[in-house]
């Protein structure tokens, strides 16, 4: 019941944020929509969401945003340079890397962070193995180099989720 109620409140807040209308019609439609969504999500397990509301986890989650943004900018400059370079300096391939993260939520965010950062794209997650497409595979120890580049995210995600 608390889960359905919090889903209802969350949906309603998003609704008001998107529509920004507070007349009677807007509120009525929002309440009905939020109720329908909360009802249809009643069987979905979201056990990690309450965890995220703990203050120290929230702090690390907020601290993660600028760090990730910095890496995203760096990734973009790198890919933009490769695209614009006349010789197209790419050396693509799919490597695999083991992650030490345990919870599904942390792994999902790790995979998404990889996709948004330097020349790497998550193709699949299989247990604790990540299959990552790289636009430029390093000459020596490609798997190990990828694992080491994951560590900078894993530290944050471990503090957020585990």
């Amino acid at each position, binding site marked *: 019941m608390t889960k359905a109620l919090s889903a209802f409140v969350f949906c309603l807040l998003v609704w008001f944020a*998107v529509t*920004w209308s507070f007349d009677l019609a807007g509120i009525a439609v929002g309440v009905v929509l939020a109720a329908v969504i909360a009802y249809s999500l009643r069987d979905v397990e979201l056990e990690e969401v309450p965890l995220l509301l703990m203050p120290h986890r929230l702090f690390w989650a907020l601290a993660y945003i600028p760090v990730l943004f910095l890496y995203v900018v760096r990734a973009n400059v790198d890919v933009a340079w490769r695209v614009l370079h006349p010789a*197209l300096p790419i050396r693509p391939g799919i490597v695999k890397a083991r992650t030490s993260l345990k919870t599904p939520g942390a792994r999902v965010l790790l995979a*998404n962070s990889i996709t*948004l950062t330097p020349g790497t*794209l998550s*193709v699949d997650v299989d247990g604790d193995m990540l*299959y990552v497409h790289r636009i430029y595979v390093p000459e020596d120890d490609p798997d190990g180099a990828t694992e080491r580049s994951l560590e900078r995210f894993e530290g944050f995600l471990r503090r957020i989720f585990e």
Partner: protein
Amino acid sequence: MIDFGNPLHVVAYAVMAAGLLFDLVGCLGLVRLPDIYNRLQAGTKCVTLGTFLILLGVLIRFGFGAMGIKALLCLWFIAMTSPTAAHAIARAAHRAGFPLWKGSVMDRYADREKGVTS
């Protein structure tokens, strides 16, 4: 439209211009890069940041009003959905048998499907 005496407007439009630049590079990448996986790299990175910066510019320009909040929510949706979609496309392409570009140096994912462990 643009009020050059207002530093906030100048910053906002500069951010939007940078976003457009990244979107342009992302489109160039789609044309120049050889296979679907590399093209996804350009698609996810440059276009995500490009769109990110345009929305950020909208937020700076209009502040936390009806428009700014919408921009902020779109930022969140793009940050969550764009990499997920790219992953789904890459995985589906690989499973459907789309080959990597001939200049690719390794494919651990294909090794796994063949049962090779190393």
